[in-house]
């Protein structure tokens, strides 16, 4: 036990003395949450739009005001003719132009039906779709108000309810993603590097000649990173609750335990990498390519797995982060209890045991 404590203490010295790395390790989750939360978002706010109002009546003005008043749109300019539309889009000044035909009001009054044209800049298709969707909804709302005292013979109203994330916030999907990414980086890469560093400097040989058991070395190496990861999980959760308003719907204890399980998976993977590499650069490269890229691409956090071709869908099942991402989404966002994530938990635990057994075996055979 004394041996073990001495070793853990030494590991803490290494980490605490290397201020820059420590700062990166603890600062990374905070920076990522802030970047994802405020910069990288596919929600559209305050998009500039223009109108070409050839009718110029009370109805068109009301609709324009409604659009302008919503948090999605800002009125940028009022156009005189069609030629200006093209010109405006070329300059990239607006994302959407709303065109009211000259007969708008009279059509509305006499035929109870009028047309509005929405012209969007579809060089960015996602934004164009989102904006026309928003504009259509706002115009429909206006129409409903016009109708409020008249009765239509047949009406079918669809009401969509967005379960678990009623405001369709991006944060609901990237908080679990960032959590997977950060734990992966801290645990896999740092564990791999710290062990390989001792191989490089020759201190590992001294350890192996000493009476301390290899298993103790491995565990002592992992303890500080486990602790760092718990701090990171805590800071990510605090930021998402208090800064991004993403609530933790499920059991906090369950969420943290799953986080620790995933941390152990990552540590085991880092250990495996360290037992098959000889230099810090190689270890870093393998951790990045072997773990970080699959985490970003194949966990479902950036790109939906359902849309991927079959081979990629199969590969994604071997990525631990995919299972962890599913677990965090289920527990944190949907508020599900353990029984709903039991399958994922067992898979993750299985991966951990497998990786750990493999790396301990590798670690030992190296001595023979």
């Amino acid at each position: 036990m004394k041996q073990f404590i001495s070793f853990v203490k030494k590991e803490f010295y290494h980490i605490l003395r290397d201020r820059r790395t420590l700062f990166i390790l603890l600062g990374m989750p905070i920076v990522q949450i802030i970047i994802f939360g405020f910069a990288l978002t596919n929600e559209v706010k305050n998009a500039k739009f223009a109108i070409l109002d050839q009718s110029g009546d009370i109805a068109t003005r009301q609709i324009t005001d409604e659009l302008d008043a919503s948090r999605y749109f800002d009125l940028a300019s009022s156009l005189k003719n069609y030629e200006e539309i093209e010109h405006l889009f070329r300059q990239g000044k607006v994302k959407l132009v709303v065109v009211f035909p000259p007969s708008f009001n009279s059509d509305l009054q006499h035929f109870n039906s009028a047309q509005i044209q929405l012209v969007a800049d579809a060089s960015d298709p996602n934004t164009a779709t989102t904006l026309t969707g928003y504009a259509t909804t706002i115009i429909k709302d206006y129409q409903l108000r016009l109708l409020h005292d008249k009765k239509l013979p047949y009406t079918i109203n669809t009401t969509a309810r967005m379960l678990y994330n009623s405001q369709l916030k991006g944060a609901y999907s990237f908080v679990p993603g960032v959590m997977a990414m950060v734990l992966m980086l801290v645990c896999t890469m740092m564990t791999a590097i710290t062990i390989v560093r001792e191989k490089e400097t020759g201190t590992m040989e001294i350890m192996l000649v000493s009476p301390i058991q290899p298993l103790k070395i491995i565990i002592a190496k992992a303890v500080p990173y486990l602790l760092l990861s718990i701090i990171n999980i805590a800071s990510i959760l605090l930021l998402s609750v208090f800064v991004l308003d993403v609530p933790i719907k499920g059991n906090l204890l369950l969420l943290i335990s799953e986080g620790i399980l995933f941390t152990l998976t990552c540590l085991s993977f880092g250990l495996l990498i360290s037992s098959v590499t000889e230099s810090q650069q190689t270890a870093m490269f393998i951790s990045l390519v072997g773990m970080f890229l699959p985490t970003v691409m194949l966990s479902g956090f950036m790109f939906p797995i359902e849309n991927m071709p079959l081979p990629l869908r199969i590969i994604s099942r071997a990525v631990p982060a995919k299972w962890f991402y599913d677990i965090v989404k289920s527990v944190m966002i949907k508020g599900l209890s353990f029984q709903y994530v039991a399958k994922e938990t067992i898979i993750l635990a299985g991966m951990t045991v497998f990786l750990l057994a493999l790396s301990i075996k590798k670690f030992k055979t190296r001595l023979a």
Partner: protein
Amino acid sequence: MEAENIITTEELTKRFAGFTAVDAISFNVKKGEIFGFLGANGAGKTTAMRMLCGLSKPTSGKATIAGADVYKQTEQIKKSIGYMSQKFSLYEDLTVKENIRFYGGIYGKTNAFIKEKTAFLLHQLNIENEADKLVASLPLGWKQKLAFSVAIFHEPQIVFLDEPTGGVDPVTRREFWNLIYQASERGITIFVTTHYMDEAEYCNRVSIMVDGKIEALDTPRGLKETYNATTMDDVFLQLARKATRADV
């Protein structure tokens, strides 16, 4: 009166996939002796030493270290030996004291032992003022001496030194050897590999390995007489020229 043997080997052999790195070596080292283990690069010194330290399992043959068998009692061996590799093996980002405390800790020494021994060691090396400085800030010669002191910190019966004085100036090497003598006087057996022939002269007995075999083993004086040479350099060159194996 003959001192007891602390290292004994009999036909000790290590083969790697069709290549015999160490070829049936047999020798004994006596308690308290300074034993020089010489050989050109690739002669098999390091492999032999790794087997004696319990880092690598022999292919065949017998060996005991302080009475413990290299096949079965590696745990016991690890407790009775110290080891200093050719790579510098202290942690640069730890202070002198922290390094000492760490090594004392992994050998399971008590705090009282570590405290007392640390004070003694700092005094002996005359680096009391540097005790709380990072090892990275020490000159190489000091680091080397500190590494040796750390290797014998837990009072092992034998200490294995793998080219301990590489890259060190002659004055520091001389000081380093003074430390070796002091350790030897305290009864610690020294098993040392080196490329410096003047250092071979400092040893009680020297073995010279060529192509995985021990070609000669005697006192430096005895070797010089046998090979009719004036210096150990001559002896070594005469033997090493026989080598057919290229550097590994």
